[in-house]
């Protein structure tokens, strides 16, 4: 990576503003067409993530800010959350784009999404989504019931965790076989699994457990969490991957590409 000092240009600001608008429109459409019922603004297929997560990889903090502001406005309208609730909740999408942005910059990996074996990239979503959802279900069952009630929940937990981890690991290996191993391995972990899980935890917790005050009852935490994570995993594994493969070479040739955090 170049160490030459770069400055924020109009290109960064203008594309950030447009990307925020696009993410907002897609967020509204997703939450209306594929809602997680009972949780306004939450979608079981949040297509907007396919815009601001790749943007986080290409544009660093601008992508994270696009995620934050689009989610903030989505919280205000049409979800109807208050200013304060939206401001806290919107960090979910900020985190989602910040994780891949930080991963590629801190580990100094130059994103090269050129596909060498496309069939592995096509199989990747099935393994990554299936494995992570199974892992998540196992943990939820263990926390809710296994820890206090024991069998048969602990057996389900053990099988779900082993099978889920194995499937997710196969997904990561498939990603590494699809193209440049560093780019793809990092993308599956820090661009699909971690963003979906961490933003799901923050988003559903600030909707149901901790906010000023949480707009929804605490009992909705688990359904919202599972809907959120599953939806984001599918979108990131399928749509965001396609965006990254198709547009990374184009974006890297333009002035919107950010090597550091802001410039």
């Amino acid at each position, binding site marked *: 990576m170049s160490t030459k000092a770069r400055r924020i240009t*109009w290109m960064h600001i203008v*594309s950030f503003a447009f990307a925020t608008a696009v993410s907002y429109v897609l967020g509204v459409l997703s939450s209306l067409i594929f809602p997680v019922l009972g949780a306004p603004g939450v979608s079981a297929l949040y297509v907007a993530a*396919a815009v601001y997560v790749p943007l986080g990889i290409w544009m660093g903090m601008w992508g994270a800010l696009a995620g934050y502001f689009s989610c903030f406005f989505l919280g205000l*309208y049409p979800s109807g959350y*208050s200013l304060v609730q939206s401001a806290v909740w919107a960090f979910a999408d900020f985190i989602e784009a910040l994780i891949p942005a930080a991963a590629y910059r801190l580990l100094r990996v130059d994103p090269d999404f050129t596909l060498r074996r496309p069939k592995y990239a096509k199989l990747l979503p099935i393994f990554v989504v299936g494995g992570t959802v199974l892992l998540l279900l196992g943990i939820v069952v263990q926390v809710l019931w296994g820890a206090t009630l024991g069998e048969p929940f602990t057996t389900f937990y053990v099988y779900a965790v082993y099978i889920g981890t194995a499937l997710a690991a196969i997904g990561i290996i498939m990603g590494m076989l699809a193209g440049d191993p560093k780019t793809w391995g990092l993308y599956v972990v820090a661009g699909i699994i971690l963003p979906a899980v961490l933003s799901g935890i923050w988003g559903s917790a600030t909707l149901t457990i901790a906010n000023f005050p949480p707009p929804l009852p605490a009992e909705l935490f688990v359904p919202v969490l599972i809907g959120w994570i599953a939806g984001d995993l599918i979108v990131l594994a399928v749509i965001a991957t396609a965006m990254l493969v198709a547009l990374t070479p184009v974006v890297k040739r333009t002035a919107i590409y950010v090597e550091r955090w802001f410039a």
Partner: protein
Amino acid sequence: MQLTPSIFREFIGLEVRRTSYQDLHVLTKLLISFSLSLSILFVRDLPSALALLALSAALCKIAGIPLGAIRKYLVVLASVTSFIAIAFVLFASIPGRVTYFEHTLFRLEAEKGVLEWKILVSDRSLEYTAVFVTRIFSMILSAILLLGSVSDRELVWGLRAAKAPYGLCLAVALFFKGFQAFVSDFFTVRDAMQARGVDFDKMSLLEKFRIYVNALIPLFALLISRSYEISLALEARGISPGSRVSSSYYESRPRGRDYIAIVGAILVVALFYYYSALVAGWIS
């Protein structure tokens, strides 16, 4: 200050009547919505939830926002309300003084106890549901008040008046203009698809979704080229993102009624806090 179309008008075409509320300074209007948001924090029982709902509705009325327009969203509101009620009934077992309905859906003998999933409707679970639903309606009304009384131009003028850098003012302005640009680009891409033989009328929902998702790639490419054109235009005019312009065509300063409204907004938060502290027994 002249009345400019509110953000709601830009989003959904909701016409807002001109009232003296609309003439308040943009910061005052933001502060009023913020005070309602803060008051929600102190709503813990039905009387305070109903009071906040009435206050939010009254402010919308004073601001000239036609609440009848919400009728279009009644289905969405009803589904949210019913799912919150279902969440309380299915997932939370809140016993009360009176039990109206109780039924065990699922029972499993586990190693260290019994897992029971039961439906329980009690007076307390109904009261909790009513508080949550009322609070959601208050939240919706406070968001409507904000978006129905503030316009994108007012926000930009407010930022200019506060001597914010050009970069920030332009980002806010472009965010609002970005919706129209995106929709227009989307129709361009859709027309191009139709010209190549894609028939949207004969497609299943899933196929339509797949096609629309594919359209994201050209849409993003259009976004980059549009950003490039605007950036070049700005640079050609010699404006840098950090430029600060001392003069402004639109001048707006807080007036007497703004100060009265600000005091009122602070009093509302204080009142809700006082009531919540009184109910919680923090003060006597």
